[in-house]
């Protein structure tokens, strides 16, 4: 692996994103707008907003980066740029880390903006530091990126890639405990949710915002899931294709 190539890739991915003003705008503006929407939808139940608002700040980057990465990687595959890169002296790790750094940077900005709006303007409280929420948000962005990268290998069109979002992300959000606490679900679903990475991402955020502490099991599962998903993603980057 090469630091120069990794950084060149990060710069290239960021340039592509920066040139796409609309996508960048949506990635940055939609989370604060949705948080504001939640705040006033739950106007009569402030305790419900207190419970889900904080965790949402850290979950948006997962969703955004999952989508952006699956489309970006699909494009690399379909336009031939991936094949070209694979015939060049670039390591798979250079490509993965290059993407990872770029999206982590975007996620940091995205989560910070959402945090400023949520904790500054909408009156949300967190027992832990806002910085810790942003750090977990960045980890979630990497998790979303790694999963998007892996799943993009199973899509042949952008239509398919976009459908992975309701198929893979929505069930995880439903089961994570965000909407209904996990212990109140049917037992089978509670068990199923224990096998989903987003459950731990949500739990980590909920713990930080309510108790101020990052649960070490949650942290370990998130990091482990990122590594596993990246390894699976790397396995789909083939030098030789049929």
């Amino acid at each position: 692996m090469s630091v120069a190539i990794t950084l060149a890739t990060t710069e290239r991915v960021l340039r592509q994103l920066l040139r796409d003003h609309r996508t960048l705008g949506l990635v940055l503006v939609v989370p604060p707008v949705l948080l504001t929407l939640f705040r006033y939808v739950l106007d009569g139940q402030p305790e419900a907003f207190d419970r889900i608002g904080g965790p949402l700040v850290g979950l948006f980057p997962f969703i955004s980066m999952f989508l952006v990465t699956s489309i970006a990687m699909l494009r690399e595959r379909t336009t031939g740029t991936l094949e070209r890169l694979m015939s060049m002296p670039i390591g798979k790790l250079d490509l993965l880390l290059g993407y990872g750094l770029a999206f982590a940077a975007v996620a940091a900005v995205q989560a910070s903006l959402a945090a400023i709006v949520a904790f500054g303007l909408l009156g949300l409280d967190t027992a832990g530091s806002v910085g810790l929420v942003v750090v977990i948000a960045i980890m979630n962005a990497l998790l979303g990126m790694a999963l998007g990268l892996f799943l993009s290998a199973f899509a042949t069109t952008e239509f398919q890639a976009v459908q992975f979002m309701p198929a893979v992300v929505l069930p995880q959000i439903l089961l994570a405990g965000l909407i209904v606490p996990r212990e109140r679900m049917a037992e089978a679903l509670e068990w199923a949710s224990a096998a989903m990475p987003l459950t731990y991402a949500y739990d980590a955020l909920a713990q930080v915002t309510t108790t101020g502490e990052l649960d070490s099991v949650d942290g370990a599962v998130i990091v482990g899931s990122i590594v596993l998903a990246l390894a699976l993603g790397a396995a789909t980057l083939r030098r030789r294709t049929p």
Partner: protein
Amino acid sequence: MNSSATVISVRELRVRRGSNLVLPGLSMDVRGGMVTGLLGPNGSGKTTLMRAIVGVQVVESGSVTVLGLPAGTAELRRRVGYVTQAPSVYVDLSVRENLRYFGRVTAAPAHRVDQTIATVGLEGQADQVVRTLSGGERSRVSLATALLAQPEVLVLDEPTVGLDPVLRRDLWRTFHELAAGGTTLLVSTHVMDEADRCDDLVLLRDGRVVASGAPPELRARTGTDDLETAFLTLAEEEAAA
């Protein structure tokens, strides 16, 4: 580099794509320091053969050796440049941004970016986003990315499709200059007048080598003046055999 030495050697190469046996056992050699044309109709296996040579094609059996190393070896990724038939560059980046990125990946010196842009005649479009370029201009960007690091072997899949005649002539001149400097070029085409510009030719049909040799030699062998007729004659001989 010894210009008559074999640089690419393909032996009994068998490649299946889907249920199609594209190359049933192809053997051929490409000599160094010259432009070898890979000539054949669409579907004859040109692209598959080129993909096998640059090591991005899953092969069933046989061997492909480039510069004495098995195709696809890590070291070869620095020494072999490849241009796919469809332009494979980032359409949301400018010409210069594309070249700067691929230049950094292939460790080409920074000054090569502007040099290469000039080689493919895109000075006027250097800061234009690729999406806004015409098809011919895009394929020139794609070609430029492979020229950047000045690899010892260049594998070009129909690099001049859709280009205007003046530019095509200039690019072929560039190919010959590179060859004179020791670069080995394998260029696929299905245009006969381009075949005539090659130092050496390999005629491909249904994944088999129908004939190979220098254009004058092929014409003499078939007793015809133009390569098109020579190709037809050779293909019919092969079919009859």
